[in-house]
């Protein structure tokens, strides 16, 4: 029940040589009950992939199966899925109750059973007092919950979320995030959640699929993706501010960036041209070490962001606000632990 298997899926719009390919050979195996977040910048194809799972977009090549059944040619309503849309897509002329009951009515579920299911979903989502209202009489957060209620009453084996939180304000978003997590724990239904927000992705995901330009960059737990990014794209996309990438040449325990030679705490995995990645929060200011020319300091409350250059390359440092603040023009010495260094191939952008 509820396992999703995506095999070598390709999506292109149009035919022949002029076709516009937006998904390139994507594969992923999702176990039953997993909470998977697909994350990537706008236009990376994450929503398209979700819509192919939902059956709203045709699959150009490859195969998608849900619960062991190939669904390439199955109608959305027959796929045993439910979807929550970004703008909720509630039927404006129906009451909250009817919105939730509509799919069941079409499926010819007995009226008594519909009532039981809707009431149960309304109780879970605290929508009880609003069942008779129309969507326009509800706040954004309540509409969001109705959209989720409509998904729950179908008792599907897969939930699909298409950026459901992006129309909410920041406070409500954090709150709804927790509710979705709670819901997933209670119902244990496989969920596929699309977002461009990396905080959402990190907090919700059991595993995440990081996509860029129609390709999968990395599939892994939030921890894996953060500590061992597979490509420079993932390194730059996950984490805020993004990882610093220094382009240079490694030679044993030395790394040369634009004429400046940095001493490495442990030897590079190989010699020659490489990209060195260091997260802003993993460099510690000290007595000796790499020289960072400070240009600007941003105070964020608990911490400071120090922007500057190492040689010619821009570098950002995140430091505790209790430490004395450097000033523009100062030179800060940085130490980085050996296991905090990330190495990438300059040509393939892959992790070394």
């Amino acid at each position, binding site marked *: 029940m509820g396992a999703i298997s995506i095999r070598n899926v390709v999506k292109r719009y149009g035919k022949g040589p002029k076709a516009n390919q937006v998904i390139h050979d994507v594969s992923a195996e999702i176990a039953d009950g997993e909470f998977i977040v697909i994350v990537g910048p706008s236009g990376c194809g994450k929503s398209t992939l979700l819509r192919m799972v939902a059956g709203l977009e045709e699959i150009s090549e490859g195969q998608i199966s849900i619960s062991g059944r190939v669904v390439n040619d199955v109608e959305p*309503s027959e796929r045993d899925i439910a979807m929550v849309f970004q703008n909720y*897509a509630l039927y*404006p002329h129906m009451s909250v109750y009817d919105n939730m009951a*509509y*799919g069941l009515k079409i499926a010819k579920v007995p009226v008594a059973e519909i009532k039981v299911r809707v009431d149960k979903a309304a109780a879970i989502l605290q929508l009880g007092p609003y069942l008779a209202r129309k969507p326009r009489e509800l706040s954004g957060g309540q509409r969001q919950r109705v959209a989720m209620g409509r998904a729950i009453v179908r008792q599907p084996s897969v939930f699909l979320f298409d950026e459901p939180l992006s129309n909410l304000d920041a406070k409500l978003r954090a709150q709804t995030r927790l509710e979705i997590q709670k819901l997933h724990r209670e119902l244990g239904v496989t969920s596929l959640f699309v977002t461009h927000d990396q905080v959402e992705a990190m907090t919700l995901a059991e595993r995440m699929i990081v996509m860029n330009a129609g390709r999968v960059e990395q599939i892994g737990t939030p921890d894996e993706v953060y500590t061992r990014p597979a490509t420079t794209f993932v390194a730059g996309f996950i984490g805020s501010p993004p990882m610093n990438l220094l382009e240079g040449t490694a030679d044993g325990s030395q790394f040369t960036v634009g004429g400046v030679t940095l001493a490495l705490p442990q030897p590079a995995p190989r010699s020659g041209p490489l990209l060195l990645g260091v997260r802003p929060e993993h460099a510690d200011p000290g007595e000796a070490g790499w020289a960072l020319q400070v240009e600007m300091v941003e105070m964020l409350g608990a911490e400071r962001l120090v922007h500057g250059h190492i040689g010619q390359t821009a570098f950002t440092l995140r430091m505790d606000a209790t430490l004395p603040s450097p000033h523009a023009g100062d030179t800060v010495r940085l130490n980085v632990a050996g296991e905090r260094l990330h190495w990438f191939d300059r040509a393939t952008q892959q992790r070394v």
Partner: protein
Amino acid sequence: MVERRPLLGLLANVVLIIGVLIVALPVYITFVASTHANDAIIHPPMPLTPGSHMVENYTAVLTGTQEGGGSKASVGQMMIVSLVTALVIAIGKIAISLLSAFAIVYFRFPFRMFFFWAIFVTLMLPVEVRIAPTYKVVSDLGMLNTYAGLTVPLIASATATFLFRQFFLTVPDELTEASRIDGAGPLRFFWDVLVPLSKTSIAALFVIQFIYGWNQYLWPLLVTTSEDMYPVVIGIKRMISGGDAQTEWGAVMATAMLAMLPPALVVLLMQRWFVKGLVDTEK
């Protein structure tokens, strides 16, 4: 406008009152004339206050027992013909246009845009331009002097189709997709989602098309030859006798008043919906 200038406000009122007078005075005179016996009307000056023959005039025209040289067909029967015609035209137009707009917006079929433009181009052809060939078709089909002949040729409507198309284009795609996931087929989606959402547009169109159907003159003049199939608009004209015969102006004016009633009622009763349909969309 939140200006506080008493003089301007007064001026605006004066202009509006003059406007109302210009529109309302003829209607008032028609009403006054419909309550007088014929002698009172044809001897100048014409009275400007209601007279005492109201009941006589109205019962006479409704039953077709008035005097004078014009037609003596019963206005009651004509009102029924007009009502049926206007209703069939209004409802038929709405039904056909809803369906054709649905097809054009939601289905991908060959020559879709061709059909859309074909419908759109007919906007430029008023009834009068195609009246001769349409008459030939209707008469060949034996539809003269029938309700079908009165209504069918007027039902196809590019305006309404276009209006519904524009409305359907504003319905978010996600709604269609949500109903697909809910398992609603195309017709189910049409009935359960699109039609209820179009309610206000339908109401607005109903008002416009009812009046359009009610006021048809030229087409019924061609396709009806027997008195029991005349709509009331033609009836008024036929009550005015030509030549030296005397016209019963009281009766004519009473008929005119009666002919004005149903469209006025439709507008009054549906005014709220009508304005809503033209102004906002429920989304």
